[in-house]
């Protein structure tokens, strides 16, 4: 996974968690559904990203009961994560707009 992809993945995870706490699988499922599997990576690579983000203080985890009753590790956004999401979203938009201008000047 290259850096850009990793950065993107983190942004998407932050976005996902902006709606509320989720466990890893739910995050993976959401990524699949909303990106129509375009950003498909190996399920396993999601977790190191989550752990790193937790270490940076963007997200926090605790153990809760899953919808089916099993204990699962849930992640949720911290205040720092929320700020990070805002910042990265802005940056991404600027970047995407720049790339778009270059690639499709006719538009």
């Amino acid at each position: 996974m290259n850096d850009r992809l990793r950065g993107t993945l983190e942004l998407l995870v932050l976005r996902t968690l902006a709606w509320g706490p989720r466990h890893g699988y739910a995050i993976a499922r959401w990524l699949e559904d909303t990106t129509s599997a375009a950003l498909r990576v190996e399920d396993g690579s999601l977790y190191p990203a989550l752990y790193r983000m937790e270490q940076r203080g963007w997200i926090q985890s605790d153990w809760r009961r899953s919808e089916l009753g099993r204990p699962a590790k849930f992640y949720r956004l911290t205040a720092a994560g929320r700020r990070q999401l805002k910042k990265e979203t802005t940056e991404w938009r600027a970047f995407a707009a720049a790339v778009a201008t270059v690639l499709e000047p006719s538009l």
Partner: protein
Amino acid sequence: MSDHDRYDDTGDTTRPLPPEVIPPSMDRRVANELAFHIDMRTRELMARGVPASEARRQAAERFGDLERVAAELNRLERRTDRTVRRTRYIAELAHDWRFALRMIARRRTFSAVAIATLGLGIGAATAIYSVVDSVLLRPLPFEEPDRVAAVWITQPGLSNDPVLSWLANATPMGAREYNALRTDARTLRDLALWSPASITLATDDGPERLEAVRVTSSLLPALRVRPALGRGFAPGEDALGGPRVALVSWDAWTTRYGGDSTLVGRSLLLSGRPYTIIGVLPPGLRIDRTSDPPPFWLPALQDSSDIAERRNRYYRALARLAPGATFADASQEAATIVRAVTADTALSARVEQWQTDESRSARGPLFVLVGAVGLLLLIACVNTAILQLGEAAGRAREMTTRAALGAGSGRLVRQLLVESIAIALASAMLGTAIARAIIRGLVAAAPARLPGIDSVALDGRVLAFTVACATLTGLLFGIVPAIVTGRTGIASLVRLGAGQSGRSTRRVQRLLVASQLALSMVLLVEAVLLGRSLQALSAVDPGFRPVGLTAVSVALPSDVDDDRVRTLVADVVRRLAALPGVERASAAQQIPFLGGASSSALEIDRAGAVGPAPRHTQQRYVDAGYFETLGVRVLEGRPFTADDRAGGEPVAIVSAAEVGRDFGGRSPLGKRVKHQGIWRRVVGVVADTKYRGLAREDEATVYIPFEQYPSGAASFVARGPSSATVEPAIRAILRELEPRATVLQSASVPMLIEKSFAAERYRTVIVGVFGVMAALLTAVGLYGVSARAAARRNREIGIRIALGGTSARVVRLLLGDAMTGVAAGLAVGLPGALLAGRLVRPYLFRIGPGDPASLAAVGALLVAVTAIASFLPARTAGRANPAAVLRGE
């Protein structure tokens, strides 16, 4: 039962789980998280119709290299900052605590009983500790208090002498030994003498009797204390013919003289002589913590009797240990010096830490109390453990769920321990309030002799003890249930559905009940032994009839001559006897139990035969009516009469104990005895009377007619009206006959006798109260167990009754169980009680430490308590309606 149903009652996705269901190790948390992911993926695939094995394969494939990811996550986790981990640990602990508080609040009855039980135990323990702390442990307010030493002469040879045994271990010091030790002892610095003294202070309301203390100039330096105002005694002032100077205590300065700084330099009339006040002592300074701090300090060694009579020893000595010296060194050196200067090889010396010495007599009894309160606390712990174990059975469902969710037994144990400690800390708060009340009682009722009792308080040290005690208590009562629950939680709780508690839980519970009974037995036996010995003590015949007697001691001015004393005393007695309601009145130098006793060597005229050397004998100076007024039986010969006057034939009367000791039990009538250098004819024998304490052996005593040996200290005793009327009457008579005489003390003799065993009563009452508490706690524990047992066997009982069993048989069945427990408890408690009896033996009077009647009484009491505590639930069970029981509720 679907998964959803099973977990429905324990939580939802919006709340964090209790810590014990989270996998405890990092590896397992990572593995769990990843396994969850793969399981969910598998489910999803299966829901789309993929067969199970294929779904699992695909899920794994989509995940990628599980082991590599797990390894990386573990690596990431390990790298996690330490502070992060610590915060997490604290958060976890905080969670444990919050959860514990929730559980305590939910189980209200159990928590209330447990907190009350432990609060009682902790409160009692705190109160006793606060006394122990202030008497034995807290350092005295001197500089380097552990280097301040009490210095005593000892006379080991006297330890078995009934009259003089009190000198064996602590003989006061005289000027001769003091001077020798001061110049020669290298292990002691600033050796100082002190001695309590009574003085009269001339006030506007007439003479006032005050306590004072005479000290050498080295005393303040020895304590490293400086006067707050003015100066202390200078070397040389504490000598024959030294200046009349005095120091005032801080209290006296502030209360009597309003803190007036011009007091220093002023002259006061003390005992008829002008003294110049040279300084004010710092606040709180006192040498002797067993008595009130004296308002005046005077220089010692100014009396000619200090120097002239070389054998006079009435000073107590203290010193500071020289740097590098030990108490053992100092004892040895002091002994050598004392022997050399007195040429008396029977003497030795003892140098001991000040606080150890002053609390010498208090220590043993205090340890009895410490032991008793320790037992009580232990009983409270066991009791709470029993209750908690019973509670744990009720929590089987909760525990099962947690265990099933993967909580290790360690996690469950930790949660339970946190709960126990939370309960213990709540109990500590209640205990502190209880301790405050108990301390108030302890201090108010304390016999005066306990040093430091007036500074007993709930301070930081004591509170630290309380918290430590509570934490330990929490661990103690929590550990057994925690282990039992932890073990059962994994092994068998899962199997429980019908609400029956585990066999091992019941076994441990029975064990705890038995040990609680055993502990209670030990404490109760101790209480009963002390109680019966107190009863025996108060039933001792003092040898006279105290009821209705009032004693008043009077100090006469020092300048009245013997003839004046004779007429004055006789006049007072005559006037006293003439008062309405007074049956008889007498005078003596000292009255039994009013304090003060003296002895001297008594030589027996053996008509040339060789006998033992003259031995110390108690001496009493009494008037003619004394024996009749007190009701002392004259066994032989006659009492004193009016003819035994000054100038008449010197006569003496001896006590039965003296006849036994010096006359071989044969009649001494007509024999001669030499007392204070005068040969006297023995004219009578009287019954032994107790004089200083009911427990003391009868001492050999010689009575001398007061008329033939008058002294400036006289006491009067009257039989008849209440003490409240006698004292003012004597004051009025004295005002008329000799206004300078002062009343020292006045009390009813029965009250004085009561006071003489106040210390015994004190500790007996305390141990007794602890014993009653122990019995109550035991009853609570038994009741709890029986009620649970009855509830557990509900169904069985229902069937029995349905099949024709009578309720009496059901009651018998349940009682039988309880009685087995009590038998086991008593069997274990018996050796413990015998051991405890051995430990309190020094405080027992006329009762053996293994007294069978006391043991039987306690056994019967505990059986009765058990019977009642188990009968109530059993009766309820026996009355159960079988139909209702069998229907299942």
